[in-house]
């Protein structure tokens, strides 16, 4: 029996069907073991079952699945030096920023609107502004109502951890099996430089005393979650000169207590944001400093490298925020959930992922068989694990590194979109070239002669020869080309 072939593009793209490019070549996947074959070899099956559709917890899943955050819990119980509670902005993409706060009822309508339109949606989170566990009534009400309508949606929260120990039992009850705690220190002396105050048991605590309470509550919460089998990710903000070295200690401590993933994020510090750090001139880390720290943490708690530091009301795939399409004024007062698109998408993805896993392992064989060398590749993609974005339309590049050790995802570099309204901006191109520093090859679905030549002059080869192929397939072929082994068509 052959299932009707539905193009992944038709579901993920916002362009009309007749403007879509030809579907990628694919060997198809008839095996029912697709799911299993995408599981990383060193991962427990039970954990994989929990994270395989979660874009933030699984690097592999982030190509296929989307999350959305609803800003229903604006009240917070701590003050962080990197946060300014007065700041709202439509054009900024960073944590804590939100355009509209929602009541649980509005959140329900918004989630249904998104679920009907964005088939990749798999996860609903409450992630600020404010703290989901402190402003708990609204978080709980929101989760209950949404889980009642959309049964398969995964619920998750992001929290500072202070009120978290009081909520663990209810989180378990509500099937919330992903929690992110922001832990920036395990030493209250360092904590005092990050948190001016906390509000706990009806009073404000400042300085080391406040930081110590926060630290103790965070560790307790992490232990409680681990004991109950709730997957916990730890977010840490890397603040140069304050906790950068210390994060090595943090990584060890949280791994010891069962944290599943550690996400070290760069401090975002801009005077215009009006945060304490922004105003005092505390700088954020440079990309190389962040990567150097992440590299030093290898071998500790597993690191997350695909984080986009998204808005607290982000919607869609990581790196492609569609929040502005779903503001309250665009959502009808009465709305009914239609599971059709999400169900169809899941069937397509199950096939694609199996196919992608096969392509990946074939590419890996090629890389391992080739000579000794390493290179860096920048990919323009809009999801699905494929090279499917035009150079001029890309707003970020995903950076991969290939060496005999394998093909690994390193980071993403945000760029200004080169092509706006069909015209390329030369000044923008200079910025893109700067962002591609250290990259050997750029892979995209399409690129014009002019930017291609300009990149070549800067020592970067750009090609659309692998357009719509899987990312790893293309990297494998390029690697074999460059380092000696016979090129093979991995998806043939």
């Amino acid at each position: 029996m052959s299932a009707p072939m539905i193009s992944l593009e038709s579901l993920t793209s916002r362009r009309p069907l007749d403007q879509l490019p030809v579907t990628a070549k694919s060997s198809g996947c008839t095996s029912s073991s697709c799911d299993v074959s995408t599981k990383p070899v060193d991962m427990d099956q039970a954990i994989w079952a929990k994270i395989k559709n979660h874009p933030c917890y699984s690097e592999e899943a982030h190509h296929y699945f989307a999350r959305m955050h609803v800003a229903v819990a604006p009240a917070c119980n701590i003050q962080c030096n990197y946060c300014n509670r007065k700041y709202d902005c439509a054009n900024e993409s960073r944590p804590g920023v939100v355009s509209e706060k929602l009541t649980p009822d509005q959140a329900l309508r918004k989630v249904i609107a998104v679920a009907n339109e964005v088939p990749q949606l798999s996860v609903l989170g409450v992630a600020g502004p404010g703290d989901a566990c402190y402003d708990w009534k609204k978080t709980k009400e929101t989760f209950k109502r949404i889980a009642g309508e959309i049964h398969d949606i995964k619920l998750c929260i992001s929290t500072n951890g202070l009120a978290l120990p009081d909520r663990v039992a209810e989180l378990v009850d509500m099937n919330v099996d992903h929690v992110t705690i922001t832990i920036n220190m395990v030493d209250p002396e360092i904590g005092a430089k990050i948190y001016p105050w906390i509000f706990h048991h009806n009073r404000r605590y400042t300085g080391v005393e406040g930081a110590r309470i926060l630290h103790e509550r965070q560790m307790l919460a992490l232990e409680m979650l681990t004991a109950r089998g709730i997957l916990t990710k730890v977010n840490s903000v890397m603040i140069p000169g304050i906790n950068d070295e210390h994060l090595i200690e943090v990584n060890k401590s949280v791994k010891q207590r069962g944290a599943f993933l550690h996400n070290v994020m760069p401090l975002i510090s801009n005077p215009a944001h009006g945060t304490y750090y922004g105003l005092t001139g505390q700088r954020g880390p440079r990309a190389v400093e962040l990567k150097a720290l992440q590299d030093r943490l290898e071998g500790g708690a597993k690191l997350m490298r695909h984080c986009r530091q998204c808005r607290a009301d982000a919607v869609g795939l990581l790196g492609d925020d569609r929040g502005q399409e779903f503001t309250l004024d665009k959502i009808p007062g009465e709305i009914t959930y239609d599971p059709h698109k999400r169900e169809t998408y899941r069937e397509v993805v199950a096939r694609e992922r199996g196919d992608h896993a096969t392509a990946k392992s074939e590419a890996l064989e090629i890389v391992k068989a080739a000579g000794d060398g390493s290179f860096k590749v920048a990919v323009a993609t809009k999801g699905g694990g494929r090279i499917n974005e035009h150079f001029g339309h890309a707003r970020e590049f995903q950076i991969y590194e290939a060496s005999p050790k394998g093909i690994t995802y390193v980071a993403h570099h945000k760029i200004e979109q080169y092509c706006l309204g069909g015209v390329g901006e030369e000044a923008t191109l200079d910025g893109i070239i700067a962002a591609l520093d250290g990259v050997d090859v750029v892979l995209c679905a399409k690129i014009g002669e002019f930017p291609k030549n300009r990149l070549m002059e800067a020592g970067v080869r750009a090609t659309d020869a692998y357009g719509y192929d899987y990312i790893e397939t293309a990297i494998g072929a390029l690697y074999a080309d460059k380092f000696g082994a016979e090129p093979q068509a991995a998806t043939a």
Partner: protein
Amino acid sequence: MAFRIIASQCTQCGACEFECPSGAIRFKGEAYVIDPEKCTECKGSFETQQCAEVCPVPKTCVAAAAAI
């Protein structure tokens, strides 16, 4: 005596509303407001005024006299 919220500074986070032991705070227009009739300044309940203690913006939830 009562406390009041400087509306132009308020971020509408609502923390004060659910910390208030007297039910004196509610959302009105663009900000939370404190009903002076109901506000007890937390006397008999807490040592400090909960609204001011939890407010994230300095000098936004203040003693009514000081705000004039």
